[in-house]
């Protein structure tokens, strides 16, 4: 291959790493990651957008650091190392928000510190950042982060419109027609479930596999070796000692 071809293929590889997270391997609808926050904060558009941006920032930064340290962090300390780095970034974001934007801080509430155990971040650290160079890891973080924002905003669009009759706080539907269910967690489950069914249908038509827990995505989860969900998806290798 000429060096020009080399550069071209590297560029398209990089672009693909970024584009993946947006739709094709969307963390919420395709990789089934970050479900708890997607149900909790997605009842309003402003909540989803704020959470999405916070997750994006933490995801990109932790991907970068973990990729930079990938050759020094040995297997035995990898989980505590990742969690320390991620928790550090989340705490910094938390303090900055509390100091400079009390509104968003109050809005996110307890879900802000919960970003630490958001499996998207651990999952990408384990499944991508620790095996790839910094540039790619950053792009993966950006793609997955934006994909997360896209997913959250689409869920919130439906939930806020039907549940509160507003968009971004601007009232649109009169109160008599509000369906309270959608502003509550049960409604969140229903909306996410339906959207996932739709995305599975589209995937089927395009000949792609159904949404599912992927081994590389769950690898970052500390209990992956014992996870029933992974087992039922045949994603646990026979007699695997991966957790150690």
């Amino acid at each position: 291959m000429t060096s020009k071809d080399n550069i071209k293929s590297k560029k398209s590889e990089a672009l693909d790493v970024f584009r993946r997270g947006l739709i094709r391997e969307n963390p919420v609808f395709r990789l089934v990651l970050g479900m708890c926050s997607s149900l909790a904060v997605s009842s309003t558009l402003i909540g989803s957008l704020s959470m999405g941006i916070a997750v994006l920032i933490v995801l990109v930064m932790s991907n970068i650091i973990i990729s930079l340290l990938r050759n020094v962090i040995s297997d035995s300390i990898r989980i505590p190392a990742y969690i320390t780095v991620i928790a550090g970034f989340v705490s910094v974001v938390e303090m900055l928000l509390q100091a400079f934007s009390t509104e968003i801080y109050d809005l996110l509430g307890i879900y802000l510190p919960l970003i630490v155990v958001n499996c998207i971040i651990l999952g990408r650290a384990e499944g991508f950042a620790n095996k790839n160079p910094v540039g790619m890891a950053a792009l993966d973080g950006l793609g997955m982060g934006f994909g997360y924002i896209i997913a959250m905003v689409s869920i919130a669009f439906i939930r806020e419109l039907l549940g509160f009759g507003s968009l971004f706080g601007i009232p649109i539907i009169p109160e008599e027609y509000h369906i309270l269910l959608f502003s509550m967690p049960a409604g969140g489950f229903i909306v996410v479930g339906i959207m996932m069914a739709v995305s599975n249908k589209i995937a089927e038509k395009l000949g792609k596999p159904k949404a599912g827990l992927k081994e590389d995505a769950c690898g970052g989860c500390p209990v992956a070796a014992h996870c029933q969900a992974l087992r039922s998806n045949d994603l646990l290798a026979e007699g695997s000692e991966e957790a150690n």
Partner: protein
Amino acid sequence: MSQQNKQLVFPVIILMVICFVTALALAFTNELTKEPIATAIAEQELIAMQEALPDATKFETVTEHEMEFVKGLDETDEIVGYIFQNSHAGYGGDITVNLGVDTDGIITGVTPLELNETPGIGMQVGEPEFLEKFVGKQDNISLVTSDPAENEIEGIAGATVSVEAFIKSVNDGLDDYKEIDLNNDE
């Protein structure tokens, strides 16, 4: 150092370094944000107190007669009222209410501080339509289902637990005022 020892020691050192650097970053951010955070919290408290006692311009937290409460003062440092904080268990946790009364014991405003009730139902106790019902009342308040009299408040359908907890907190505040008033006359 033997190969085995190296394998044991090296990861530990790396982990220590990671923790140390993280701690440094956190300490730095903390220094940076300490003041703005304190200011933001003080501002929020001020707004809540202002809502409870609109005529006051300054607020003083005092502990008198074995109670902690807030005195509201105007520009001439005259006492215009008091704010008492009380809580009761609601449906989704404690409901904490700031009760503002003027020097005659008439309610000037109520602000909920902690409110984790069901959205659309119990949370209605935090809405202005409910809160303004309390303004102007004086003696202990009771809950009724319709046609509220002078010292009664009409409840909210389906939110009885939240409303009762709210009213209990308000009444506690009114009792606090009576304590102060009693002691002031002595």
